[in-house]
């Protein structure tokens, strides 16, 4: 791609990654969550693939697909964490400790250290979506590049 696209990608890639991380991190407080933030960050990866060509990222296929599997396993493991009560019971919510603060009823700005397993699940799903969509875009782009010549 031209130098214009490459320069704009260099500017926009950190912004999209940081904004995706923000949306994932505040998933239990503001609109958004793991799926949406992962898609935002994956759009940054797609931008890199478009601007710099897929062959530059070809060696990262294994990293992306293992990150995707790791996110899925972490999500299921967090679901099994509540198996003492039921599957997907939120055992960490309101219990103190990690993400254990409780929330008063009614409109309030909220606290990052709340909601129990939800932020952890958001991170797992966010990495899963980021790596999954990135791997799909990368695989399609590699396929197209191999068939161009």
């Amino acid at each position, binding site marked *: 791609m031209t130098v214009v696209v490459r320069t704009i990608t260099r500017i926009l890639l950190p912004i999209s990654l940081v904004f995706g991380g923000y949306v994932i991190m505040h*998933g*239990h*407080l*503001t*609109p958004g*969550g793991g*799926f949406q933030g992962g898609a935002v960050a994956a759009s940054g990866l797609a931008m890199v693939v478009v601007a710099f060509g897929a062959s530059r990222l070809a060696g990262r296929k294994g990293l992306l*697909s293992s990150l*995707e*599997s790791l*996110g*899925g396993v972490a*999500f*299921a493991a967090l*679901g099994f964490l509540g198996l003492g009560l039921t*599957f*997907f019971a*939120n055992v960490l*919510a*309101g219990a103190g400790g990690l993400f*254990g*603060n*409780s*929330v*008063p*009823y*009614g409109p*309030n*700005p*909220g606290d990052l250290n*709340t*909601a*129990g*397993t*939800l932020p952890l*699940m*958001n991170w797992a*799903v966010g990495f*899963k*979506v980021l790596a*999954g969509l990135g*791997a*799909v875009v990368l*695989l*399609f782009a*590699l*396929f197209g590049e*191999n068939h161009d010549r």
Partner: protein
Amino acid sequence: MSRWLALASFFLGAGLLIFGAVGVRPFGDPPRAEMDAYFNRYSQPEVAANNAVTAIVFDYRGYDTLGEATVLFTAVSGVALILRRLRK
């Protein structure tokens, strides 16, 4: 013949849609609101999450989200399987 068939199926479908639209309740007035009221009242004390949508998606209906994650995993696996390099 096929034109009459198309016309008849069009009027049948349109009639069904209009029949459904007549019985629609006014906006913001669902027939059963107990579940909505429960989520509004208890998503903050029970899940300790300010975002009720995330509380529903990841806690009350976490099983559904597991299915969604499985769908994504299956899609990525299928793409990786079909677009892999066979030889060379």
